[in-house]
């Protein structure tokens, strides 16, 4: 079966222009050789610190920006270099859920106009037909259909996020890109939206690219997880494997930094020194070596390849077979 999305060696380099003539003096390698696939009904999460390239990757896939190189096979067709007009028919099949439910809905439009707009744009001009579909979508995201003619200000953050999801689902997409969809919500509401996404995916067979920084949320929603560091995937594995047996020192440090909601489990953490490397001037060799506690001289010069260490588990580390890494241990009763 062809995956819904197959990204191969994706690169996005932003030129740095300096001086009056705007000469290109370097490049920010925001995304540098990223490859992954997402099947129907599957959620792949992209995680990493700010500036690691996870949002740029998702924007390339949606073709909000043009990638520098690489292939983006969407349902088997390469869309990486398609022109605007050739992209249009594909756009309805890939939709986005935004982070901020307050700025992503037009305050001057009613809910039925917001959710109905993609339908109207794609030729559903009959009002009755369109309203019926809007009502169906509202039911799908568990909002009362009676709210159809209200404006966004009447809704709470969680309800707005449901409206955003309904809009994304209006045209029966096969791929949803969700960039931090729950990070702006309160804890009690966050749980409702996480569950809704899981339910909708199981029902509609959606492929979801989930971009997030909260590893606890990621664990609840994903089938597989890709960890990014300075534009590259450093580890990709099924969720359970990644959390139980991480094979990259960066993944180990990320997992260790997540606070566990149990005061009896105050563990000694691996505190990473310094900040994320500058993507316009990344360190030589392995990008992570200046912050890695296992780094040797070899890591400073040799760029590690992404190697499959077990079926479906790929790691970009020269020393992965030599080091024993800690993981998230289950609670002891």
């Amino acid at each position, binding site marked *: 079966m062809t995956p819904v999305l197959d990204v191969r060696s994706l690169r996005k380099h932003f030129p740095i222009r300096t001086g009056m003539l705007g000469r290109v003096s370097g490049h920010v390698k925001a995304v540098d050789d990223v490859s992954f696939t997402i099947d129907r009904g599957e959620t792949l999460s992209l995680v990493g*610190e*700010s500036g690691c390239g996870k949002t740029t990757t998702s924007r390339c896939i949606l073709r909000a920006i043009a990638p520098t190189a690489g292939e983006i096979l969407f349902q088997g067709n390469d869309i990486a270099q398609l022109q605007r007009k050739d992209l249009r028919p594909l756009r309805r099949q890939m939709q986005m859920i935004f982070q901020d439910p307050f700025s992503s809905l037009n305050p001057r439009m009613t809910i039925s106009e917001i959710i109905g707009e993609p339908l109207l744009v794609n030729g559903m001009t009959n009002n009755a037909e369109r309203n019926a579909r809007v009502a169906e979508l509202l039911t799908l995201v568990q909002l009362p259909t009676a709210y159809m003619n209200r404006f966004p200000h009447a809704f*709470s*953050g*969680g*309800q707005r996020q449901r409206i955003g999801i309904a809009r994304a689902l209006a045209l029966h997409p096969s791929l949803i890109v969700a960039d931090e969809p729950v990070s702006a919500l*309160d*804890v*009690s*509401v*966050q*749980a*409702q939206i*996480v*569950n809704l996404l*899981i339910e909708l995916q199981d029902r509609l067979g959606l492929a979801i690219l989930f971009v997030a*920084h*909260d*590893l*606890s*949320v990621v*664990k*609840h*929603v*994903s*089938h597989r997880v890709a960890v990014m560091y300075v534009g590259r995937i450093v580890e990709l594995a*099924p*969720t*359970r494997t990644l*959390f139980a047996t991480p094979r990259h020192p960066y993944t180990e*440090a*990320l*997992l*260790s*930094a*997540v*606070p*566990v*909601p*149990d*005061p*009896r*489990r*105050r563990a000694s*953490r691996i*505190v*990473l020194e310094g*900040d*994320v490397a500058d993507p316009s001037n990344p360190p030589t060799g392995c990008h992570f070596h200046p912050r890695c506690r296992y780094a040797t001289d070899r890591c400073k010069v040799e760029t590690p390849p992404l190697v499959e260490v077990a079926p479906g588990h790929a790691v970009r580390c020269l020393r992965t077979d030599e080091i024993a890494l800690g993981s*998230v241990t*289950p*609670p002891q009763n």
Partner: protein
Amino acid sequence: MADPILSVRDLHTHFFADEGVVRAVDGTSFDLFAGQTLGIVGESGCGKSVTARSILRIVDRPGRIVSGEILLRRADGSVTDMVKLPADSREARAIRGGEIGLVFQEPMSSLSAFHTIGNQLIEAIRLHASLSKKQARARAIELLAMVGIPRPEQRVDAYSFELSGGLRQRVMVALALAGEPRILIADEPTTALDVTTQAQILELIRSLQRERDLAVILITHDMGVIAEMADDVVVMYLGKEVEKGPVDAIFHAPNHPYTRALLRSIPSILAEPREKLATIAGSIPHPFARPNGCPFHPRCSETLPGVCDTQVPATVQIGERQAAACHLLSGKTA
């Protein structure tokens, strides 16, 4: 146990808007001890930030403290009620930034983009100590080194936008410490940061607390951060303190239905992949549409009709140090 350094007693801070009165803080009491961390946790609109701002007397209009006491035990042993001090008095200003330091959530918007971080630090230092500019600059470099900023002699002349988010938050901590406070209030100090940077900042607060016997009030919505840092916890909902107690009791023997529901609904890194979360029905009410009786009753799974929707629950003491405000605990039935 020693005397508390700060005692808040039945604090009420309300906002008088044209549309009505928002009871942002509606009866909060707690004690803070030197060397200890008090965590105040709750969702948006619960009044946790307004509590902090009330303590510092920096509540913006149309808000004001309606009643209650904020008793600050001074270094000389005397007790000052912050509520009785005029907010802009010399004494209140000396306490703000002097005895009580504050770390805000947004390091980008809380630091000036027009002054070097050194100048901002020097200003804060000289407000609370009579030092020459040169001495203050040396002290600023010392503070930057103390909060773990590499090459402080050079960074002292940097602007905030030249620093990363983590370094900026370290500068915020240095600023809060400039007046040698005995109390540090940190309002969502790590919310805008990556997990790895969050771990660094929490570790920094912990080590500074150990060195200087600081009393810390940590305000956050993140139960993970609370579990990691707090000695005592106050759980707030819609301006009400619903439960408080030692951190272990809050997490392992919670008494209030809201505390229990909140703990069940947080995503955990220990969960099974694709595991659904327990949810709390509904959403946080609008501040002008506050429910009668117990503020949590419309979302509570154990609500008693005729009781919870009409009467405000009293705070019930459970054991020596834990208390919760719930009708179920006072033995009421429907």
